[in-house]
């Protein structure tokens, strides 16, 4: 299925469109809000494993209904190395297009999409409420986008010698 294109603000004076990334996989991570009350939150986890996405040449885009100034402060505080897009006006419009908007709460749900280089939705996942989805499903989907290529192998940690 074709992923609906969108253009959203990433900073007060920059916009990002899904179609900008044609030719590369894109990971869309819809989430309810910046400043979630847990410190070890989903966005910090994704930030910590950005290299795993880069291995697949994939671009991570996170989307919530928070405004650009809020996103800016949040990204600075957590030192996030990927864009936070503001689905702010009209509120939640992109989230609705992707079926990832919670009308009752007025925020995006925790929903994940992997979009292939041709702009088609290759995988999606809606997380149960209250559960931070990890990246295991995303990474497995990115792996499947590269048929014929062996999974990325990493050197296994060598044994330590304990005197």
């Amino acid at each position: 299925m074709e992923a609906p294109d969108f253009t959203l603000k990433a900073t007060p004076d920059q916009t990002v469109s899904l179609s900008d990334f044609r030719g590369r996989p894109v990971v869309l991570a819809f989430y309810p809000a910046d400043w979630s009350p847990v410190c070890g939150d989903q966005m910090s986890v994704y930030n910590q494993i950005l290299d795993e996405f880069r291995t697949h040449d994939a671009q991570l885009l996170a989307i919530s209904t928070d405004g650009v100034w809020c996103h800016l402060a949040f990204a600075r505080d957590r030192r996030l190395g990927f864009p936070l897009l503001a689905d702010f006006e009209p509120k939640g419009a992109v989230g609705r297009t992707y079926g990832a908007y919670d009308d009752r709460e007025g925020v995006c749900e925790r929903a994940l999409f992997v979009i292939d280089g041709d702009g088609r939705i290759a995988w999606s996942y809606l997380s149960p409420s209250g559960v931070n989805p990890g990246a295991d499903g995303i990474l497995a989907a990115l792996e499947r986008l590269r048929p014929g290529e062996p999974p990325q192998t990493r050197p296994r940690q060598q044994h330590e010698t304990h005197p």
Partner: protein
Amino acid sequence: MSTLKPTLDPDDHLRGPLSAPIQLVEFGDYECPYCGQAHRTIAALRAALGDRLCFAFRHFPLVGAHPHAELAAQAAEAAGAQGKFWDMHDLLYGDQRALSLPHLERHARALGLDMERFADDLRSHRHLGKIRAHVHSGAISGVGGTPTFFINGRRHDGAHDFDSLLAALTMDPTERLQAHG
């Protein structure tokens, strides 16, 4: 369903026998206050379950949010290289405000470590590769925050308090299968 990859092996940091019927794995960060709370809960769970429980710790330092977390993880590994991983682990969670280099060196001295080797391990980032391997394990296993727990290889999505964890740990395996669908 998110499962632990790779599974536990003798090279993991283990408390309790690897052959124990219940395995609890934590992906944690030394600067995360929720992990600090979990540390106390896990001590109580170990006391309650004894040798029925094998607890393992893998590193998942959230370096963007927690500037001291990765160095603290390296200190734990440097102590581990001298046979004192769990001693350092307990000291780090004993005072999470004391995670800068002088504090880490004070802990190392208190444990009687070879200070030259400890300092050299930190300076040369000797154990960073191992920590990154843990983070990779967390990434492919579905870590969604810190702490994230895996019980007998399956991610625990429930609460982290003593009663919830004890119930999940002692649940009959067939019930556990059904609860996870």
